[in-house]
Structure formats: structure tokens, C-alpha cells
């Protein structure tokens, strides 16, 4: 099916939903690189007009990535909840934006609609939204998850403590963990990216973190962000696995380039759940969200796995939203976009990173995901700390579940800049937000006091 809109006597036509979505996307370098971006500002806004008039129901009949070629599309189509979709079935994309921003769109209604949306619908409406729209709509949505802490409650902001070390030194990692815990980070997860992908290192780091947790009775969950098969091997060797991590993307081919598919993720999910390591959380529920996913616009393109209908490229923001369809199938504890990590050929500067971060947060939340964000950049992007402060603050206003806590915002293993323990403290202070309730209670109790005291001799804490 083709779509058209006329501006000043010039008729713009778009041959497919895939093309319409790509042309309607606000400018970003990755879509230009893929050769699918609008060729002028006028063409872009024409596409947005055409998209605004498109009925949401159309998304159920035209797929941007063919059903027969791609298991992510099959997951989206086969698990679509028609009952949840029914209330908005007659809406156009433009009418969905108007409704989302209206007073009719309450927390309860938004939560109920989530399973009725496909990622392409959500991506489409985000393309018509300004930054303040992405914030205003996302701020109404709450997605709460539990393991040993409860993350995503109103008035709360959590942080993933990211204590990476260039050579996986357990003492070096523990030093960063101490620094972060004492500054109030870690209530989302203590998650280490290992420099190597070995089972032994993974198991060793998991044991070190678990020992520290038990010794000071810290309500946290830990994770070593090795490949999921490495974590499963560690699990099989009785390593104390709390959350299982994997990077995911929005096409079957991109997931293949990550060495995963839906069957493998299902297997990991079942293995992790069987451990039953979650605790009774503040509301009496037992924590049972055990997966942690990371995503990011451009990952499919960078794997040359961004092709859709007709063998043509799908825009990176739509593919990112499709990754959330993979994530939501597994009821994860945490999902975050790593928004500026991928580099300037996908998101060129602070402006593109900022919008992408807010789009991802909004799309993930509307699809029912516990969204966090790695607010970050690399040194070859046109961005700096001021850009990160801006995105960090806007995400706080939008109600982001968690951000990263990296010592001094400088990841010395992955060589990029994220947000710091101090950034999390800043955001909590200016917006009146508090840590996860279980973690907050711990910070006020004996465990934290003992940790602060014994931290004076960090080497003594490191005997595993």
C-alpha cells in the first residue's frame, strides 16, 4: 500500500509502511547512512502528515519486516492482544498522540493498553511527538518490577552500579562497588561488564558480589553482563546468578549477530526462574523478574541486519521499538537503551542522542517495559557532559526507572562516558526522588553503617 501527502502543490508519495516510517523519522545520521532518511525537511513533514492520518489498524495488516522471514515479527503478530487494542482500534496515529497527551490517558488505561500496541505503532506515534510530548506521556506510565528491590515506583529513582575494570580485577571491581554503594547507587542492580567472556571470571565475580551482599545484608541483585550462554554455563556450575543479561535487537538477523534467538532466551529465562533467588519485596510480593536487557538504536544497522519488506532498510528507531517486543515477552526486571554508545554514524550529536533517549524511554514504557537509560556518549560524538546533564534531567522528569552509576561517569573498561553516582544523587535531590524502598531502608540501617566503617580497609572486604 502507498501513502501520500501534498505540501504547496508538491505531492509526496511513500510506497510502503516501511518507507513512510523511515521518512517520517526526525533526522539522525544512522538513517542517512542507511540511505532511507527523508531527503528534505519538507519530505519529512509530509511523511509525518501522512503517518498522522494512518489508522492504527493498518499496522496489523502490513509488516515492516516480513512475517515469514523474521521471528521477531512472528512474536509481535502472534502475541498481539486484540482485546487490549480494541479501545483504540479506530484511532489514527495522530489521534493516538492527541489521546496520549489528553487527561483521558490515565495510568490505569495506559497500562491496560500496553499489550494492545505493536512496537511499530508506538514508534510511529513517537515520530509525531516533540520532546515535551515524549516526556509528558511517559511520565504518566509506571512499570514496577521486583527482585530483591522494587524498581519503578512513583517518586523513586534507582541506579545500576556499573563497576567495570579493564582486566576484571575483583579487587578493582569491589573498590568501585564500595564507592557506589556508599553513594547510594546499586538499587537497580550491581552489573559488571566483564572485559573477557569466560565462565570462570563470570562465576568468580558473581560469588564476590554475592558474598558482599550477604555479609552486609544489602538488598540488591547482581549481574555479570557476559554473553547469556556464558552466564548459563556459570549458573550450571552453581554460581549465584541473580539477573541474567543479554543485548537484544529488533530483527531476527540482528539477534543472530548477537548469538541469540527467542528459543535461547526462553531457555535462559526458565533456568533463571528455577533458581528462585528473588526476595519478598516491600509490598509482600516475591521478586520474580529475572532478566536484564540492553538495546540501542543503530544496533541492527551496524550488524547489516536492518532489512525489511522488499529487502529495503527499516529506520533504526522503529527497529529499536521492535527490540522492546522481544524484551516484554520475558517480563524483565530491567531494560535500558544504551543511547549514545554506538557512535556518531548512528546518532551524530547531543541533539540526536537526547531525542533518541527520550523516544526509547517513551516507547519502552508504553509497551510496558521497566525502562532505564544509559545516558552516554563516546569521544567521537559531538556531545559532552552538558548534553548528558540535559538528557539525564529530562529523563528524571519523564520518570525513568533507573540510570547508570559509573565512578566519575568514566567507564575505564568500555571507554565511554556514562552517568555517575553523583549524577544519580543530583537527580534525586533536584526532583525529590528516593532510592528503591528496600535499599533506602538498608541505607538507614546497621548494614550500611557497618559497610561504611569496614570500607576504611577495603582490602579486608575482598576475601571471597
Amino acid at each position: 500500500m502507498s501513502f501520500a501527502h501534498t505540501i504547496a502543490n508538491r505531492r509526496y508519495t511513500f510506497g510502503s509502511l516501511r518507507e513512510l516510517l523511515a521518512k517520517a523519522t526526525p533526522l539522525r545520521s544512522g538513517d542517512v547512512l542507511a540511505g532511507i532518511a527523508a531527503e528534505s525537511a519538507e519530505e519529512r513533514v509530509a511523511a509525518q502528515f501522512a503517518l498522522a492520518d494512518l489508522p492504527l489498524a493498518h499496522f496489523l495488516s502490513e509488516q515492516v519486516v516480513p512475517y515469514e522471514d523474521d521471528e521477531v515479527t512472528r512474536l509481535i503478530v502472534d502475541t498481539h492482544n486484540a482485546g487490549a487494542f480494541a479501545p483504540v482500534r479506530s484511532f489514527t496515529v495522530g489521534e493516538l498522540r492527541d489521546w496520549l497527551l489528553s487527561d483521558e490517558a490515565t495510568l490505569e488505561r495506559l497500562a491496560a493498553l500496553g499489550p494492545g500496541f505493536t512496537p511499530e505503532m508506538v514508534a510511529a506515534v513517537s515520530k509525531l511527538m516533540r520532546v515535551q510530548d515524549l516526556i509528558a506521556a511517559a511520565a504518566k506510565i509506571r512499570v514496577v518490577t521486583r527482585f530483591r528491590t522494587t524498581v519503578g515506583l512513583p517518586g523513586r529513582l534507582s541506579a545500576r552500579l556499573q563497576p567495570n575494570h579493564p582486566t576484571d580485577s575483583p579487587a578493582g571491581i569491589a573498590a568501585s562497588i564500595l564507592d557506589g554503594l556508599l553513594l547510594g547507587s546499586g538499587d537497580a542492580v550491581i552489573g559488571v561488564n566483564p572485559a573477557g567472556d569466560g565462565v570462570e571470571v563470570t562465576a568468580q565475580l558473581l560469588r564476590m558480589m554475592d558474598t558482599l551482599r550477604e555479609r552486609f545484608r544489602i538488598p540488591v541483585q547482581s549481574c555479570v553482563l557476559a554473553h547469556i550462554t556464558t552466564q548459563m554455563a556459570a549458573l550450571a556450575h552453581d554460581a549465584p546468578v541473580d539477573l541474567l543479561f543479554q543485548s537484544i535487537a529488533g530483527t531476527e538477523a540482528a539477534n543472530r549477530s548477537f548469538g541469540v534467538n527467542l528459543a535461547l532466551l526462553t531457555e535462559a529465562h526458565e533456568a533463571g526462574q528455577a533458581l528462585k533467588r528473588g526476595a519478598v519485596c516491600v509490598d509482600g510480593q516475591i521478586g520474580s523478574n529475572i532478566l536484564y536487557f540492553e538495546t540501542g538504536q543503530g544496533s541492527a544497522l551496524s550488524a547489516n541486519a536492518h532489512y525489511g519488506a522488499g529487502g529495503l532498510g527499516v529506520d533504526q528507531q522503529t527497529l529499536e521499538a521492535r527490540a522492546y517486543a522481544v524484551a516484554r515477552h520475558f517480563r524483565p526486571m530491567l531494560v535500558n537503551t544504551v543511547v549514545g554508545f554506538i557512535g556518531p554514524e548512528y546518532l551524530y550529536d547531543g541533539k540526536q542522542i537526547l531525542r533518541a533517549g527520550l523516544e526509547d524511554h517513551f516507547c519502552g514504557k508504553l509497551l510496558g517495559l521497566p525502562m532505564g537509560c544509559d545516558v552516554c556518549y563516546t569521544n567521537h560524538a559531538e556531545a559532552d557532559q552538558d548534553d548528558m546533564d540535559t538528557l539525564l534531567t529530562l529523563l528524571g522528569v519523564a520518570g525513568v526507572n533507573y540510570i547508570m552509576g559509573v565512578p566519575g561517569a568514566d567507564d575505564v573498561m568500555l571507554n565511554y562516558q556514562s552517568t555517575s553516582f553523583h549524577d544519580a544523587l543530583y537527580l534525586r535531590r533536584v526532583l525529590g526522588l528516593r532510592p528503591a524502598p528496600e535499599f533506602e531502608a538498608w541505607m538507614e540501617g546497621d548494614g550500611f553503617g557497618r559497610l561504611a566503617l569496614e570500607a576504611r580497609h577495603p582490602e579486608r572486604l575482598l576475601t571471597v
Partner: protein
Amino acid sequence: MSGITRAKPVAGPVAGLAARLRALTPARVGLGRTGASVATRDLLDFQRCHALARDAVQARLESAALARTLGAIVGGSVFRLHSAATDRATYLQRPDLGRRLDETSRTLLLERAESKSRDLALIVADGLSALAVERHVAPLFEELLPKLAGWRLAPMCIVEQGRVAIGDEIGALLGAQIAVVLIGERPGLSSPDSLGAYITWEPQPGRVDAERNCISNIRAEGLSCTRAAAQLEVILSAARRLQLTGVALKNEAGLLQKG
């Protein structure tokens, strides 16, 4: 009484802890803190590191001067080439253009390279840090060239706005059996001048990363030029013996320990 006195930043999350934590990791632990914020000195230290990294990314390679220096070391002709990425902003957004030569450079190689079989092409590209190239390529070649006595070398090439894969096109045009691309790596906050070396058997457009071997982090605080040259010699010899590079060489030879 104004009630205003100087703020006294706390060193680290708990007083007295900063130095002990820092002894255990190069991460920015134990920062000075005022309220919830980082103290001025640590803030400026971060900004200094970012400034160095940014300057390294934006720096233009002084290609003519480098050609003179390297020409003196190699004792042969040096070709100065340019990728199809016309400037830095284009280079950063269009990796595809950084991977191929512009018309002038391709014509130059076609006309003057006298394509015949050679063992090795040495190619220098600015990549993401011209600083790395300016600091480490000449010392590395001083160490490396004496080890390559038995190798028939193609004329050396210096490429502006080049990415790793541009060595495939150059190596093919030069008729080289192996291409080595020395290239400035993406600057980290603590490493604005890190050089990488990529080794590719039978270079030709279309090669993928899995078909190359890499030595990274060549810089004063990382892998020294002496050690890098020794590692390069080992990889080059193994590549010639086994007639391949990449994952297969890594598995076959089991010799590519990370520096």
C-alpha cells in the same frame, strides 16, 4: 554575620577512603564531593581529559610532514592518499566513505603503483586519532622495519580520513599479499593517543573484521612500540606461513595474546 564559609569537599564517599579505593582501580573512585556534586578539581580533571580526547578526534593529520619522516625510515616512496570522506564531519557520519579512496587517490595508485606481487603493504591512516599516528607510527616503524628484511614491501601509503577497511582497496591495488593498517583508535578519556594495527591476508574490498587480526592499545601507557613490533612480526610470519588471517589464524596459531 553572613553565615558563608568556604565549602570543604569530602574526599570520597566516606572521609579517608579515597586513596585506598584508588589504589585498587584506575576508575574515578573516591572523587571529592561537595553536597551531592563533584568537587571543582575533579570536575576540571574530567573536562581536561575530555578536551584531550576531543582535540585528538578533530586533529588533522600532518600528512606531508609524516611522509617525509616515514620516507626517511623506509627509504622508499610514500604515497599520500585521501578517502572519499571529504572532511571530518562526513568521516564521522559516513563510515562507508572512509573505507574507500577518492578518485584522485585511486588514479594515483593505478598509474604509479606498478602493480606487481609484493609481500606486504604498510598503510597508515588517521582514523579517530591523528595524535596516535603522529606519536607512535615512526617509532613503531623504527622497530619493525629491521625485522622485515626478507619481505618485498609495497610503497608506503598515508591516508587521510581513512578507516581500517580502506587498506583492502589499497592493498589490492598494490598487489600486496598482506596489508597492515596502522590507525588511530577511538580516544578514551585516559587514552587520546592509542594506535591500532590491523593485519589482513589477501586484502580486497569486501573483507570483514573476522578476517583480520588486530593489535590494539599501542601507546606509552599501554603496549610499547617495541612489544607491538615484536607481536606484529609474529603475526605476519604466521599469516604468511598459514596463508590466512583472522579468527582462523587466531585458532590455528593460538599466538595472539592480548597486549
